């Protein structure tokens, strides 16, 4: 196990390093060089080449690419994420202020995905090839296929315009009004969780069916255990192991979905901050958010790998 963990750590760090290069290079091709943007936002207008060169040196843009990269990473690790060009604020502070809101959305989406996905998948497998299975399976494909933005529009129309159950947009902090907070995140988190719910349900179904076909299940039945006991004691746990991987693989989708959902519902989280930064070409903000997204996704996959290795000893050997 120790060796397995070590290997995963090295691998995760390598991927993180490569992703940071990708993000760095992407930042270089973005339009609007930071010097120009800074000049525009300070209304300096046309200035001497000397001033521009000075500023370029200040931003470190006069150095070769690999040095710029090293500088950027060093500053990032130290907690200096630069200044937002559009807001003239410290990027790290902006990020930290919005982080809890997005975390709440993530937690909510995992909640919905789990309480819909697992039961649906299990029921589907137990009632295999019945109309119930067929409708749940089709429901799962629809859940996977429906675009976040369209689901958002339809739900806003149904539950905020036609029937006024939920607010159409906006966010109320939990500390201000817990009930309104839950109402304001109910729809966004449900929408975010739908895709994972569909995937989980589908994978739980196929993996449970596979487990139920195993010899040891027949043995358990033969020794006179009730069907419920067979399921709970012998079938469900091994069937859930492969599903963990799916949750990890889908995490990127949830993160990307949060960008659209926050944009649509005017939720002042990280996704909205980054979307606005993309619109404004505010690349210190974009780069910092992308790096944190990368760290988040690599970390989630690392944990999934660990959990998987812990639950299924066969994985560790490979």
């Amino acid at each position, binding site marked *: 196990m120790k060796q397995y963990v070590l290997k995963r750590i090295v691998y995760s760090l390598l991927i993180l390093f490569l992703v940071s290069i990708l993000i760095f290079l992407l930042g270089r091709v973005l339009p609007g060089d930071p010097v120009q943007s800074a000049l525009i936002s300070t209304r300096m207008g046309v200035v001497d080449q000397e001033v521009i060169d000075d500023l370029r040196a200040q931003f470190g843009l006069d150095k070769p690419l690999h040095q710029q990269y090293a500088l950027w990473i060093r500053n990032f690790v130290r907690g200096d994420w630069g200044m937002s060009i559009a807001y003239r604020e410290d990027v790290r502070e902006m990020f930290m202020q919005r982080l809890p809101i997005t975390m709440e959305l993530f937690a909510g989406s995992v909640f919905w995905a789990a309480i819909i996905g697992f039961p649906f998948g299990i029921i589907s497998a137990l009632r295999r090839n019945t109309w119930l299975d067929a409708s749940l399976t*089709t429901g799962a*494909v629809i859940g996977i296929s429906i*675009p976040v933005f369209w689901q958002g*529009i339809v739900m806003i129309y149904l539950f905020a315009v036609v029937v006024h159950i939920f607010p159409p947009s906006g966010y109320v902090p939990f500390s201000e009004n817990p009930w309104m907070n839950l109402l304001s995140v109910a729809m966004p988190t449900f929408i975010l969780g739908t895709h994972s719910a569909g995937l989980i349900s589908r994978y739980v179904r196929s993996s449970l069916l596979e487990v139920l076909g195993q010899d040891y299940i027949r043995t358990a039945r033969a020794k006179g255990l009730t069907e419920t006991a067979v399921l709970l004691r012998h079938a469900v746990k091994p069937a859930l192991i492969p599903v963990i991987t799916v949750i990890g693989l889908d995490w*990127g989708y949830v993160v990307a979905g949060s960008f659209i959902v926050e944009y649509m519902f005017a939720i002042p989280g990280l996704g909205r901050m*980054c979307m606005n930064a993309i619109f404004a070409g505010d690349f210190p903000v974009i780069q910092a958010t992308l790096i944190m997204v*990368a760290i988040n996704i690599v970390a989630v996959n690392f944990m999934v790998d660990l959990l998987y290795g812990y639950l299924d000893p066969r994985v560790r050997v490979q």
Partner: protein
Amino acid sequence: MRGTDDWAVLRALAKHKIAVAGIIILVCLVVMAVFAPWIAPCDPNEQDLYRVLEGPSREHLLGTDDVGRDLLSRVIYGSRVTLLIGVLSTLFAAIIGVMLGLVAGYKGGVLDMIIMRLTDTFMSMPVLIMVLVMVAAQGPGVRSVIVAITVFTWTGYARIVRGQAMLVRELPFVEAAQALGASGFRIMFRHLLPNIMAPIIVTASIALGGNIMLESAVSFLGLGVQPPTPTWGNELRIGYSYLEIVPLFSIAPGLMITLAVLAFNFIGDGLRDVYDPRIR
């Protein structure tokens, strides 16, 4: 996998109810896109400023948009650009991914290591976010959307093709080809590729739906194909601001996007079941 007869696949697919549903939806969408000028009741760009934001009526079955254009016609024409972007980006991504996957799987060694780490790197970022950033960087337009989607979606093919190529390259007929002095290039494209088409087709089918979704999302956020070109994502974006007055304005184009994605997922699922019946 070897010797999968195309006709046998189609026949098996015809028995797969969900896949048939997908094919029917897809055929309708393609017919709509190809014959748009004959099907659409109005010119999609003709404005009538006296009749803006109307609900459904006899002349305008889905109503009109914010400058009085016929919504139905715009949705019909919208299928053209949306499907075109979906097909082209899938094709380019598949070509890149398959080539890299073949090289990685057949050659192995350092090349394999480099290509697979590259794949992992691209895979560890959310595609939609990277596509948004890249489209913003290049400036909006059909071409930049296709390029951005291609750059961030080739990874799935590379990974699958590599795995399959590693299995197939151990088969005796590959060794025979090597013994006859076939070049690596020839073995990869003449011997390996035809034997691993099945998973490539399944991946491409599902990716097509995903790419349509990506294009729509980018256009919905206002960074993609620019108006007045009708695309479903564009209609959705403008319609969204009038959701309370004319709900169909955004719901109709969104339904088309969903149907398209659904159709490709249905077909992809059907193909997977046909090629690999074990899972079912």
